[in-house]
């Protein structure tokens, strides 16, 4: 195992293991407790970024398949295997995330038997399922060759073209349908991103970015394992600490600053850039055709996001692939590929999550568990890629680091023991070590929020609770609760007869009585703010003397030179910050009670008596709602008189 990939593999192991633990948390505590998904954002990180974004970045299987098998471009033949492997792993890890995302993972097979042919999601499910099978079949020859089952491998090679064509057809369907999924939300998706062209935009961008991903991964692999095939021979062969694969250096004659595979990668990236350029054209035409231009010109954060996304996905890669100085260097191609991949992922997040912010009115940010699972599945796919590519000739014959002969994966002792002594024993040690740290860390980081708050939901105070000394009030619903000394207030206002003094102050429809109804202005007679008490206290603190020492305290609260009104005074919280109770600071077991609202208070006070009297006096209308509620009257008083006159004359 190379020392260059050791760090990256360890990071992948950490991510994958923490993802595994997070997945257990998600299954154990449920979707609502471990994710920030809500009724406002039913689709979150896993569906949008992992599934829709991940699948879009894994289009390599069918695009390279098209170039190699249908157009028969021999040059791209060496990229076929990586492309299929990327597609297989990309789809695999996306589906793993999706499996955790659906509410009832045990029922993932339902769409196979329960059909709704009107649903785009149904079509996507079938196409993804079938295409995943197709990539597995395309991948199989590689495995069978390694296992020396040549007859099966030969048969699979024989039907490759059929399989590839089925795969391309399925892909062209579901990549566009993933865009069509969002066609159902014309009212909610931000108009910059909602367009009837979504299916087209999705498939073209996915094809372009998918090709870029192959280029990027091939270059990354070359960076780690077979430097010379892509980047050309190193300038200084005697560089210590870095081993160079002997096969490739001897096989490849020096031919300038790049390796023999670079031209193929460059032309692949050029094809991708053409596709992304087409995407750019589509996007711009779409802007003008479907009214996005005026939305873009608003200049809010969505406009900027749109521009950033479009720059990353299309503009930057296309420019980099056009300019000679950047397209000639491997670094330029790599930057173009990275930019396209990141831009595409951002685009899917925009369409799936950020485009709904203006409608939902709240922001969605994934929880730790969501990030860990989302990154974990990708990391696991990366590890599988490392394992397969190190043990099979995925990236060409010279790409595996060990110079063992290819195609001799003997099951008997020899190879197994070699596998154990080289790969597993070493990594098992480290994996165990990582796991030992990861598990407690994950427990500490993830467990606390889900134990208590979900077990004890906030509930409104009922009769007995109102007798308690204190209640928690969050009048403006900002999550910051204030301790309200209910008993004290009640006592000061005249005990049990005083309920109406406060509970009558809020209006119908208010969810609870806001404190500001009383504590709003120092000029308000019901305000508890005492101006004299404050000035006296300031005099005392500042040791002021004279006939009217309080006259020198004005500027402590009011801005100098400003009129001495409540509006120019300091916010109470500037001095009395300790009175503010941050969320969670209150001892929640006793006090997590909301004050009862106007409605609850009035209904509790009035209705019982009304119902009782209605029966006693035999006047059932007393218990009707409209005896007290008189919203039925029309809004304009003139209309009322006319209407009532009409009624009277009719009667």
């Amino acid at each position, binding site marked *: 195992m190379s020392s260059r990939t050791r760090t990256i593999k360890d990071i992948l192991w950490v991510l994958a293991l923490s993802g595994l633990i997070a997945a257990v948390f998600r299954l154990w505590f449920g979707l609502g407790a471990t994710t920030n998904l809500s*009724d406002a954002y039913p689709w979150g990180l896993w569906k949008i970024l992992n599934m829709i974004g991940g699948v879009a970045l894994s289009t390599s299987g069918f695009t390279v398949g098209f170039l190699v098998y249908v157009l028969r471009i021999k040059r791209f033949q060496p990229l076929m295997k990586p492309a299929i492997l990327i597609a297989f792993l990309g789809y695999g890890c996306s589906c793993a995330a999706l499996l955790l995302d659906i509410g*009832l993972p045990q029922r993932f097979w339902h769409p196979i038997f329960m059909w709704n042919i009107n649903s785009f999601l149904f079509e996507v499910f079938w196409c993804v399922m079938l295409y995943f099978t197709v990539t597995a079949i395309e991948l199989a020859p590689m495995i069978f060759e390694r296992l020396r089952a040549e007859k099966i491998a030969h048969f699979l090679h024989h039907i490759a073209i059929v399989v590839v064509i089925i795969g391309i057809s399925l892909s062209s369907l579901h990549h566009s349908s993933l865009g069509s999924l969002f066609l159902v939300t014309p*009212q909610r998706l931000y108009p910059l991103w909602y367009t009837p062209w979504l299916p087209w935009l999705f498939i073209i961008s996915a094809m372009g970015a998918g090709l870029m991903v192959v280029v990027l991964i091939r270059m990354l692999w070359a960076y780690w394992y077979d430097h010379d095939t892509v980047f050309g021979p190193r300038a200084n062969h005697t560089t210590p600490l870095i081993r160079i694969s002997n096969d490739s250096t001897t096989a490849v004659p020096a031919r300038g600053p790049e390796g023999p595979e670079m031209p193929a990668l460059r032309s692949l990236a050029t094809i991708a850039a053409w596709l992304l350029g087409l995407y750019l054209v589509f996007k711009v035409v779409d802007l003008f055709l479907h009214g996005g231009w005026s939305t873009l010109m608003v200049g809010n954060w969505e406009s900027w996001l749109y521009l950033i996304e479009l720059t990353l996905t299309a503009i930057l890669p296309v420019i980099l692939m056009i300019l000679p100085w950047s397209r000639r260097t491997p670094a330029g191609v790599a930057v173009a590929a990275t930019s396209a991949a990141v831009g595409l992922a951002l685009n899917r997040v925009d369409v799936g999550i950020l485009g709904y912010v203006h409608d939902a009115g709240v922001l969605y940010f994934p929880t730790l568990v969501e990030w860990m699972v989302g990154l974990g599945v990708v990391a696991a796919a990366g590890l599988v890629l490392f394992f397969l590519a190190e043990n099979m000739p995925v990236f060409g014959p010279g790409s595996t680091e060990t110079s063992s002969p290819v195609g001799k994966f003997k099951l008997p002792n020899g190879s197994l023991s070699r596998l154990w002594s080289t790969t597993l024993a070493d990594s098992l040690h480290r994996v165990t070590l990582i796991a030992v740290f990861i598990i407690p860390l994950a427990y500490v980081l993830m467990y606390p929020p889900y134990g208590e708050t979900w077990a004890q939901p906030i509930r409104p105070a009922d009769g007995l609770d109102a007798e308690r000394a204190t209640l928690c009030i969050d009048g403006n619903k900002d999550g910051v609760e204030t301790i309200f000394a209910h008993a004290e207030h009640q006592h000061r206002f005249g005990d049990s007869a005083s309920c109406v003094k406060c509970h009558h102050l809020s209006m119908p429809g208010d969810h609870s009585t806001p404190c500001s109804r009383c504590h709003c202005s120092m000029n308000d007679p019901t305000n508890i703010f005492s101006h004299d008490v404050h000035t006296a206290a300031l005099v005392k603190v500042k040791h002021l003397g004279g006939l009217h020492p309080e006259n020198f305290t004005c500027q402590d609260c009011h801005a100098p030179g400003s009129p001495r009104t409540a509006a120019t005074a300091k916010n109470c919280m500037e001095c009395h910050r300790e009175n503010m109770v941050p969320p969670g600071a209150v001892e929640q077991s006793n006090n997590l009670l909301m004050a009862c*609202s106007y409605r609850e208070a009035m209904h509790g006070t009035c209705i019982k008596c009304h119902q009782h009297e209605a029966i006693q006096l035999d006047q059932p209308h007393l218990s009707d709602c409209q005896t007290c509620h008189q*919203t039925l009257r029309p809004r304009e008083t003139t209309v009322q008189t006319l209407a009532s006159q009409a009624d009277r004359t009719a009667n």
Partner: protein
Amino acid sequence: MYGILVDVTRCVACEKCVAACVARNKGNSQLADRDRATTKDGLSSHRRSAIISVDEGRFARKSCMHCLEPACVSACLVGSLKKTADGPVIYDKDKCIGCRYCMLACPFHVPRYEWDQTKPFVTKCDLCYDRIEQGQLPACVEACPEGVLKFGDRDQLMAEAKSRIKAEPNRYRDHVWGEKEFGGTSVIYISDVDLAELNWPDTGADSIPELTEPLVHKTPFIGLGVAVGLISLNWIVKRRNKLAGDDDSAKHSEENHE
């Protein structure tokens, strides 16, 4: 086809309909009260209907509109949601896999998810389908003391809505919400204020399934077309290569020099 007529001018926001709804669905009234305060529109898995303030002093019952061409039914990939011939859009929890596409698809933002459950399902109003089948009124209609809600055949309700508007043109706006919007709904509204709060579109938009269903029905043919195109393209390339002789290597180097 059954439906409900909602007369917004009569609603006094007593929320008896909501209480009856929670009771009928065997919900936890305390959790329902909590969600009334903590959610944006009062709908949650514990509260399948809510009273929302549509204007100063005007309230409307928000719940499933039971669209004539429901987006949720069209979206559900396992057919867990169904529009019955009687009008209600009902939910079969035995089929649901929890993909939550219905929640995304619904233009009124009605289906809600049981986020506090480890085995969660979608919840939505089913117009008390079991009660209708037994000849009873839906729980909310039965509970309403003000005559805001009226249950009956949709066509008759539509006629009644129009006659009410005609009888008191000063009292109502000359518009029946749900007559045409999103292809028409089984729950229709008459009001003296605008009902934008209930997510009604400004203009008479097409139904949501009309945006997607014609497309999705074309997909098998598109797939077949792509396959046929690929096969012929493959044949052409094969034949061209054969005619040009096996000079792939020459072509290869040529392209490299471009």
